[in-house]
């Protein structure tokens, strides 16, 4: 597979040079699987996907072929870590997006790998250290203030089409004014490194990095990582692509582990003490907004999140109103169907994550807050900044671009 995709990738870069892409680029969708005994073996992994109509056929002891009863052949799957699998595909981007979305939304044991703007900020520092300043880097910023609008529209129910490109000019669109930022910045890495922080201070949507390119150290192009774990190979080498995936997945798994170690709340028996004393262990997840929400935006956020089934934050609960801009929700992460308790205010959000709730819930929450509410929000696990945890996770992984 690696040899095949290597050759295929080299051909696509030639296509890109000629500005005529004959076949789609190689793309990877990273997915997080719940850490269960049954998915440790290939058979267990296969049974997890069968329930969503996806067939996995073992090719060797680490690789599976992926096909779907409706969509046909998808590509290959490889386990890149204890909790993350990669699905490699040469399907068109919109096809793969739709398929991945249907798969993730129909299976509570699967989730995207969520790379928040804060995580990308740390990965960008890594890019700065690894790449020569004259190389070109690329960042995409996306902030869509769906709760701050001039009409009573607010957040709409999510649909299958949501991930598809924006409507064309011919499409009829309701005119809704809202704060929305989506643009791509491509420049020399050295220049971006110098200016980005100042720009972010001036204009907070620039904290909402939703896509980032790792330049390839073995040739031209690079690897475009999206905030939902999709990665497009725009380099000549699939091996290099896979090495970058492994690097980011290792960081992500460290991050998941440290998130869960810190954030999981439980009543725990004290070890080694007679009488088995009980104590509360864990740390709250705290998100603070850079700019306080107006009561109108707060109401839109609370209503859109808890009154609509398919809301952006994938949360469920009945808010208990404690004030004009304060609610408590003893609810459930609608995607993984795991409990979490929230305090939402105009100044931020506090989440209590009971023991066993997947760390991905935290990363999805942070990613969505940056994307839809406040791009410059600060996040903490207990009193430790979220960004520090990402930095610590990145430091634990040695970067080995040529290692297999």
């Amino acid at each position, binding site marked *: 597979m690696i040899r095949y995709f290597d050759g295929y990738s080299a051909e696509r870069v030639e296509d890109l040079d000629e500005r005529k892409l004959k076949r789609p680029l190689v793309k990877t969708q990273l997915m997080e699987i719940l850490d269960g005994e049954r998915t440790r073996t290939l058979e267990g992994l296969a049974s997890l996907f069968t*329930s969503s109509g996806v067939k996995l056929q073992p090719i060797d002891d680490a690789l599976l072929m992926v096909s779907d009863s409706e969509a046909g052949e998808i590509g290959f799957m490889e386990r890149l870590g204890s909790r993350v699998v990669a699905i490699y595909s040469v399907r068109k981007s919109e096809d793969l997006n739709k398929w991945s979305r249907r798969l993730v939304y*129909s299976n*509570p044991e699967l989730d995207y790998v969520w790379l928040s703007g804060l995580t990308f900020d740390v990965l960008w520092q890594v890019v700065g250290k690894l790449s020569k300043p004259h190389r070109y880097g690329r960042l995409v910023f996306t902030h869509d203030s769906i709760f701050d609008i001039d009409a009573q529209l607010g957040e709409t129910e999510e649909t299958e089409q949501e991930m598809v490109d924006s409507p064309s000019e011919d499409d009829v669109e309701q005119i809704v004014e809202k704060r929305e930022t989506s643009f791509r910045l491509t420049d020399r890495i050295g220049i971006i490194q110098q200016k980005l922080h100042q720009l972010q201070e001036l204009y907070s949507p620039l904290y909402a990095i939703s896509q980032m390119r790792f330049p390839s150290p073995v040739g031209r192009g690079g690897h475009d990582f999206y905030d939902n774990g999709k990665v497009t190979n725009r380099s000549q080498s699939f091996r290099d692509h896979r090495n970058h995936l492994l690097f980011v997945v290792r960081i992500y798994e460290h991050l998941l582990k440290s998130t869960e170690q810190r954030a999981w*709340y*439980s*009543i725990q028996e*004290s070890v080694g*003490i*007679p*009488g088995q*004393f*009980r*104590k*509360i262990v864990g*740390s*709250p997840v*705290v998100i*603070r907004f850079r700019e306080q929400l107006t009561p109108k935006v707060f109401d839109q956020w609370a209503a859109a999140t808890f009154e609509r*089934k398919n809301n952006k934050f994938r949360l*469920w*609960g*009945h808010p*208990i109103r*404690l*004030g*004009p*801009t*304060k609610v*408590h929700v*003893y*609810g*459930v992460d*609608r995607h*993984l*169907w*795991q*409990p979490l*308790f*929230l*305090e939402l*205010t105009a*100044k*931020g959000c*506090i989440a*209590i994550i*009971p023991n066993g709730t997947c760390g991905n819930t935290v990363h999805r929450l942070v990613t969505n807050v940056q994307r839809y509410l406040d791009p410059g929000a*600060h996040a*903490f696990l*207990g*009193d*430790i900044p979220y960004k520090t945890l990402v930095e610590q996770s990145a430091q634990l992984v040695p970067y080995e671009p040529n290692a297999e």
Partner: protein
Amino acid sequence: MSLTPSELLKDPLFQLNSLLWLTQPVPTDIEIKPLLHERGWTVYAIAQLLGPPLDVLLFAQRANISVQERVRPDVVLQQTPQRRFAFVECKTSSFGSSSTTADQARALLIVGGPRAAEVLGLSVSQVSESFVSYVLPDDQRKLLDPTLEALRKELGDKKIPVGNAILLGLQIAHNAVCIVVDPVGSASFDLPTGSTPFLTLEPDTDPRPVYFIPYDPDVDQTPQEKSFCKRILFERMLGAVVSAAGRVIPPFPTSLKTKSILNDSTFGMYDHWENQESAKNMRGVCKHFMGKVMQAVNSATPNSMSYQPGHGWLIQLQDRNHQERVLDTLTRFSCDTLDLQAEPPPSLFDEQEGV
């Protein structure tokens, strides 16, 4: 807002949950200030049943001093580097030295005294200092002080070793809920003397933090406050059912036992309630609630949920569509419409489920 902030200060569950938040690691610029966490205090034990040393109990008996045989302080706090322990009890109001609560206080003063290491099962070198602390509204602080002094003197006169009693008052001041300590309390907890704000008040906003411990059938609460806490408990129980129904992969069934629902809803505290009557009451509350949920589910999607003696509640889902419909009903179920003040009717299931 159900209660004014001043009324809220009297509520033992508000006091307990505020105390727990004071020990949580959180950034310093949020509404609740982690005053105790900043000073190295952590939760060592919650609602742990402790007994005074037997020789002390016998000695007190011979001296005709009434001491409760066992005591369950709401929280035991520990300041690790200093090897300090605080045995903390939350109270709505003061009490007199001849009240039944005084028996509990005597036991607490002994447990939190010089023999605390023995009571906790630690070596003497692991405890350098221990004391008892009461959290209560500040207007009750000055009333309780003489009572505790009298009890300490009574025990001290009989050579029964007792700990210091530190009072942590709660008051509304500086547009915040504040903790009030005197110079002795300040030295023991390392808190500033006087009134220190820890929970910011916002206009027209209830200052309650998210509750770790949502419900305790044993505490003395106003009906209004009890209803609020029951609402939280019901929301958490519903969350436990929604989680279970959402995670199951059809056509496999999923079962929920009263015990697991209650533990999921109370951070596992239910397992540790030793008051059997309270635990039974909680099971009754849970079963009554689950009966209502089952009724709602079955009326929308017949035969989806049943109670199986020995297994608890069984949710049987045929396929994804069926699961979606059951989840729709569950997620629309409103705890707010239930009668939150009603006591559960006697249950027939209690023994059969084997909880």
